[in-house]
């Protein structure tokens, strides 16, 4: 069994965070924190040992998700996956993130993405097919899904 993931949720919408938490836990992973703003996200990344952070672009203090990703990337302890209804706002370099789960995702889309990410984080590259609605950053595309 691959070790489950410790997940930090950075999402301003309570309902979505709640549901995401349930789905993450149903998939056998654990949620180590929920941040709604960039400041909260920064302090939680310090106080938790999350493997992966799901980061929305739009938080309670504005479109600060990309900054959060940068910050997490510099700490080098956790990886970032954007989770947004606005993927066009993600810069081309993805601020070091693995990729993006575009909202609205389906329940199965999310579960598949979790499995894919678990494989990729624990034993890269992932063996399952990349789920629909999940896009890799160019940097990770090169490593996780090199063109045959």
């Amino acid at each position, binding site marked *: 069994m691959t070790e489950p993931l410790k997940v930090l949720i950075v999402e301003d*919408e309570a*309902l*979505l965070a*709640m*549901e995401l938490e*349930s*789905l993450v836990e149903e998939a056998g992973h654990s949620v180590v924190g929920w941040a709604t703003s960039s400041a909260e996200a920064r302090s939680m990344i310090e106080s938790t040992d999350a493997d992966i952070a799901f980061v929305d672009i*739009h938080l309670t203090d504005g479109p600060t998700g990309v900054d959060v990703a940068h910050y997490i990337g510099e700490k080098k302890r956790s990886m970032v996956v954007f989770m947004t*209804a*606005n*993927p*066009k706002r993600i810069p081309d370099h993805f601020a070091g993130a693995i990729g993006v789960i*575009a*909202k*609205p*995702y*389906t*329940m*199965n*889309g999310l*579960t*598949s993405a979790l499995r894919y990410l678990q494989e990729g984080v624990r034993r890269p590259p992932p063996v399952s*097919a990349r*789920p*629909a*609605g999940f896009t890799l950053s160019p940097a990770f595309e090169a490593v996780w899904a090199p063109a045959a």
Partner: protein
Amino acid sequence: MDWKRTREPADAWHMTDDLHVEHGKGDPFAAAIRATRMSMVITDPRRPDNPIVFANDAFLRLTGYERHEVLGKNCRFLQGPKTDKAAVAQIRTAIEDNADVSVDILNYRKDGSTFWNALYISPVSNDKGEVQFFFASQLDVSDRKRSEHRITADKDRFEKAVKERTAELEAALEAQTTLLHEVDHRVKNNLQMISSLIIMQRRTIKDEATRHSLATMLERIEALSTVHRRLYQSKDVSRFDVSDFAKDLVTDLLTASGRSGIKPKLELDPIVISAEKATPVALMVNELVTNALKHAFKEGPDGTTAGRIGIKMSQPDGHFKIEVSDDGVGMAEANGDASFGMRLIKSLARQLHADIEWRDAGPGTKVVISMPNEPQQKGLSHD
């Protein structure tokens, strides 16, 4: 000064003055120059400062001077403070080089009023190639200049107006785009929330039938979500790549069912439909695929199900054709004309002006949908 060696008598131009008195006698060519309505002067470069030695009446009329006021003077007395220095320099250079020159220059009359002078100067040489005279004609082109100015001013005004209008339109477009993104963002977030609400509600419910209803409802909403997720990914938000969507949907439904024994068979030509057709097509495909998943396959003795679900999308002769097939039990035993799923499919087909037909595929079922579709534009589907 070497007047006498030239062929013309030194007093050639005084002769023309004589002609004026004795009209019709002497040189008819000189007489013509005297009398023409075109202003003309002749200067003598061999005298100090190239003075006027002849001026016709038209020149005097144009400039407002008397003949005795102009004879012996250099023509620069016609220039004034607003005369363009560059134009003067151009004339000076041409005269130094003994060359022709044609230039529009602002000149002043005796009364101080100004006019635009279309000046043409050319040297007149003798047999030996020595310049003897400069000949010039002056034409009052103030009217032309005025309209030229007006045209330039009009053009400037027009360009300014166009620039302003373009800026306005760009700002409006920018606002529209921002608004579109904002609305799109909200629609997507709201769809996500609706799904979340259903999932959360379902967790609290024990009754199988209700759970089943909620699951079906979630599938339908997720089909809509997938449409929306894909809709704004392309640059052209009015077109929808239905084959890419179908691939997403089928993969999602199959993995969600957890039945790895059922294999998809996708034959998807890249087909683009208009955005308003995207939702009904998506819902219809969702119904057909979930039906096949739910009803077509019997569990084997080992608790697993095996089978194949096929989706084919093609566009023969301007018709968009969708085929959803399975190799399951077939529909002979189905009695479901009154069921909601079937009604939904049929209503959506009507909305799309689509023909829909359930065929016995022996084994299994094949549903064939055919609807008119606008011609495909190359390159739209994958940019």
